[in-house]
C-alpha cells in the first residue's frame, strides 16, 4: 500500500516553523546588509524581500517550503505553491518566475506522488500568471515542497507589513482554522466537507485586482505560521508607532467544523506555542471559550491577507473582495492608538 503523504511527515504545513523567538536569536547574529536599494529585508519580518532596480521597477523575491498538509499530492502541490506565491502578492507585487524546491525520498514506488505534487505547483504558478523555470531537489525521507518566486512591483507602490495608521480598518480575506483541520486530517477524523472547504481556501491565490490595489491600503501581510494574533502583533509592534488593534471576535471568519475538532484535541503544537509567545500582548474584554481563543493562534498555511485600509474605502474593498471570490472577507477590527503592553484588544 502506498503510504499516505501526511504519514511521511511529523509536523504539517506552516505549523512546522522554527520557534520565532529562537529564530530572532539566530537572525540577530547575521550581518544586516544595508543598501538603499533594498526596500524590504530582514528588519520587519517582511513577507518578501524587495530590491529597487530603478524608479519604476522593483524585484520582489521570496522563498517558502512546507511539509504536507493534506494527503492528496496534487492538492498539496497546489497549496504549497499558493502559499509561496502569496508572499509576492502580500507586497503588492505580481509573480514573474518561480523555481521548485523539493525534498522527497528516492524511492521509485513513491515517485507517482512527487509527479502529482510538481504538477499541482506548476498549475498554480500558471494560474498566478508566472512561469516555472527550473528547480532543485534533495533526497529526504520527509517530503517538502515550495517555490522560490521572483515578482515585480512598482517601488512606489510596495505595501509593507508594518505601516498601518490609527483609524484604519482591518480586513481578513480568508477564514481561519486550516491548521486545526490539517491536524484532524492527519488524525483521520476530518470530514470531507470540512477538508474541501479548507482546500478551497488554501488553494485560492491571494491575488488582488488592480482595482483593489488602487485603494488606500496602508499595510498588508498574509496570515501564516504565527497565526492571526502573531501577524497582527507584527503589524503594530514593528510599526515603531504607538499603535494597537481592537478586534471583534464575532466578526472573525472561522471554517465550520473547526471548533468541533479543537474539542476533539486537534490543536497543533504550533498553535500552543504561538499562544505562549503572543498572548501577553492580548487583552480580553469578553469571556472567550478555549476553542474561540486558540483558533486565533492557529498557524495558517496559505492563509488570507490581513489588510489595513482607510476607513472610507473599506466598504468598497469588501465589495471588490467578495466579487473576486473572497466571499468570507470580513472587517475584523480597527487600528487604534495604544501604548499599553496589551495592545491587542479582543472584544
Amino acid at each position, binding site marked *: 500500500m502506498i503510504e499516505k503523504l501526511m504519514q511521511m511527515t*511529523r*509536523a504539517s504545513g506552516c505549523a512546522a516553523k522554527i520557534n520565532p523567538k529562537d529564530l530572532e536569536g539566530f537572525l540577530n547574529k547575521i550581518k544586516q546588509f544595508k543598501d538603499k536599494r533594498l526596500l524590504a529585508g530582514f528588519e520587519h519580518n517582511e513577507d518578501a524581500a524587495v530590491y529597487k532596480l530603478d524608479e519604476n521597477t522593483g524585484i520582489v523575491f521570496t522563498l517558502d517550503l512546507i511539509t504536507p498538509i493534506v494527503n492528496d499530492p496534487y492538492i498539496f502541490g497546489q497549496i504549497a505553491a499558493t502559499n509561496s506565491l502569496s508572499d509576492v502578492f502580500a507586497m503588492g507585487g505580481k509573480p514573474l518566475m518561480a523555481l521548485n524546491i523539493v525534498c522527497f525520498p528516492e524511492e521509485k514506488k513513491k515517485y507517482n506522488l512527487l509527479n502529482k505534487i510538481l504538477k499541482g505547483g506548476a498549475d498554480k504558478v500558471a494560474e498566478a500568471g508566472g512561469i516555472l523555470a527550473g528547480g532543485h531537489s534533495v533526497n529526504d525521507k520527509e517530503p517538502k515542497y515550495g517555490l522560490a518566486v521572483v515578482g515585480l512591483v512598482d517601488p512606489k507602490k510596495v505595501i509593507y507589513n508594518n505601516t498601518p495608521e490609527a483609524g484604519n480598518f482591518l480586513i481578513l480575506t480568508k477564514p481561519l482554522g486550516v491548521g486545526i483541520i490539517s*491536524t*484532524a486530517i*492527519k*488524525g*483521520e*477524523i476530518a470530514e470531507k466537507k470540512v477538508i474541501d472547504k479548507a482546500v478551497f481556501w488554501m488553494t485560492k491565490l491571494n491575488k488582488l485586482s488592480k482595482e483593489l490595489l488602487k485603494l488606500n491600503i496602508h499595510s498588508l501581510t498574509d496570515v501564516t505560521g504565527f497565526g492571526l494574533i502573531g501577524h497582527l502583533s507584527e503589524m503594530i509592534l514593528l510599526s515603531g508607532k504607538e499603535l494597537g488593534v481592537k478586534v471583534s471576535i464575532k466578526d472573525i471568519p472561522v471554517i465550520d467544523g473547526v471548533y468541533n475538532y*479543537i*474539542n*476533539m*484535541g*486537534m*490543536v*497543533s*503544537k504550533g498553535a*500552543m506555542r504561538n499562544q505562549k509567545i503572543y498572548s501577553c500582548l492580548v487583552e480580553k474584554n469578553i469571556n472567550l471559550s*478555549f476553542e474561540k481563543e486558540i483558533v486565533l493562534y492557529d498557524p495558517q498555511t496559505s492563509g488570507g491577507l490581513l489588510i489595513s485600509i482607510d476607513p472610507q474605502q473599506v466598504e468598497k474593498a469588501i465589495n471588490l473582495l467578495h466579487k473576486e471570490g473572497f466571499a468570507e472577507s470580513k472587517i475584523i477590527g480597527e487600528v487604534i492608538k495604544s501604548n499599553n503592553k496589551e495592545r491587542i484588544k479582543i472584544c
Partner: protein
Amino acid sequence: MNQSIDVRGLSCPLPVVAVRNKLLEIKKGILEVLVDTGTSKDNITRMAVNIGWRVEEREEGEEYLLTISK
C-alpha cells in the same frame, strides 16, 4: 484491572487519536495514559472531558501520567 496506554514518542495528533479510540472501545472504567508533551497532554484532557470522562494529571519528570475514568 486498569487499562493503560503509552503514547510517548508519537507525533501529533496520533496520541489523542489513540487515546480516543481506546476510550470509545472500553466505554467505562479507568485508563492510564503515559504522555511526553504538554500539547498532547492538553489535547487528550480536552478530548476526554468533552466526551464525558474525568481526567487526573500527575507530572513525572518531563512526562505526564493521566488517569482517565468514567
